[in-house]
């Protein structure tokens, strides 16, 4: 059983060449080297991940941005194999939330501190590790099939499994180990200088858009449509995390 590394297609750019050389040297030094898949823009990561799960690889390591990390995490849901993350490129919300930064990612992988985390799931089958964002007009939201929340005008609804501290929403800090999601309903002042004028916060297992469906943005900026319901998948993913994580 070996580690398997999946490189995001954007890492083929010359600007990442030295970073990847340093990474591979460090992994070899730590005795962590393994098979590398270098994705091309049209390569389907689904088949790679499913194949490696079937072969019972030791660890599947997503190397790149949140877009790849979230995609791999969603494909690994309910599998026994741990996901590891090496963030390269744009700031990774997923990695930061889990206490991982690019400097220490190899050391964290070597330490193999494995936790089992919840994931979020939509009615369309999309899965997210960190958050999903929906912007809706006059939304009516059913929380845990019990409580109805209404707002007027354009409203942003953030459903969070785990986020770094700097997002600073009011209310409880989201924990990906509590079997619940945090829903933040944000009403923003219109105009050039947009600022939050009201924020509501709920901890729930299920959130249904009675007035939906809506478009949504998942981890890493992936857009998806037809979102009507968001639920939690408790303890769905084993992940190697850093000790700097905030949950």
């Amino acid at each position, binding site marked *: 059983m070996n580690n398997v590394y999946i490189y995001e297609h954007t890492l083929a750019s010359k600007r990442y060449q030295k970073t990847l050389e340093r990474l591979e040297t460090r992994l070899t030094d730590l005795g962590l080297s393994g098979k590398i898949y270098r994705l091309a823009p049209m390569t389907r990561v689904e088949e790679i991940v499913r194949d490696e799960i079937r072969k019972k690889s030791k660890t599947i390591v997503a190397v790149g941005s949140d877009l790849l990390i979230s995609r791999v995490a969603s494909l690994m849901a309910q599998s026994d194999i741990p996901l590891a993350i090496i963030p390269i490129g744009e700031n990774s919300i997923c990695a930061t939330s889990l206490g991982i930064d690019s400097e220490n990612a190899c050391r964290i992988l070597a330490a193999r501190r494995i936790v089992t985390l919840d994931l979020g799931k939509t009615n369309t089958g999309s899965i997210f590790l960190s958050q999903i964002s929906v912007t809706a007009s006059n939304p009516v939201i059913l929380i845990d099939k019990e*409580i109805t929340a*209404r707002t007027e005008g354009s409203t942003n609804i953030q459903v969070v499994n785990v986020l770094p501290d700097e997002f600073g929403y009011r209310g409880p800090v989201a924990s990906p180990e509590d079997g619940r999601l945090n829903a933040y309903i944000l*009403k923003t002042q219109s105009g050039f200088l947009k600022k939050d004028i*009201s*924020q*509501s916060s709920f901890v729930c297992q299920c959130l249904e858009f009675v007035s939906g469906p809506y478009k949504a943005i998942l981890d890493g900026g992936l857009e998806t449509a037809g979102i009507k319901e968001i639920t939690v998948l408790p303890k769905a993913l084993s992940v190697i995390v850093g000790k700097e994580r905030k949950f």
Partner: protein
Amino acid sequence: MFNKNGIAGAGREGIETIIGSSVKIEGNFVCQGGIVIEGEVKGTISTAGFLEVGEKAIVIADVTAKEGKIAGEVRGNIRVEGYLELSASAKIIGDIEVMSLSIARGAIIKGKCHVNVGDLKTAKNSKPEVSNDNE
């Protein structure tokens, strides 16, 4: 008195739910943590933590909480196991059952007020020590 969980502002420990000023809620709230209400709520509210009702909030619900601070309007019966603070802007239309109470000048209460009733779990079967109708 309020413990550290009852201090207003962002990042409070113990808060489970915040209902912002732009949100209208209907339903039965049951939670273990604190609830801050700045918008409108209809239904029932039950928390093992503290309840804070903001100045512009409107609550049409029977309320049960461990501790409370009310600055807005509550239409319903209020039962608080510990300390309840009514600010000057508070308007209560309903009965209050509480262990310890402070009422700021200007607060309005239309209903019965039972203070220091001992064990609130058996309070329904016992006579209140203090009864105050202020209509």
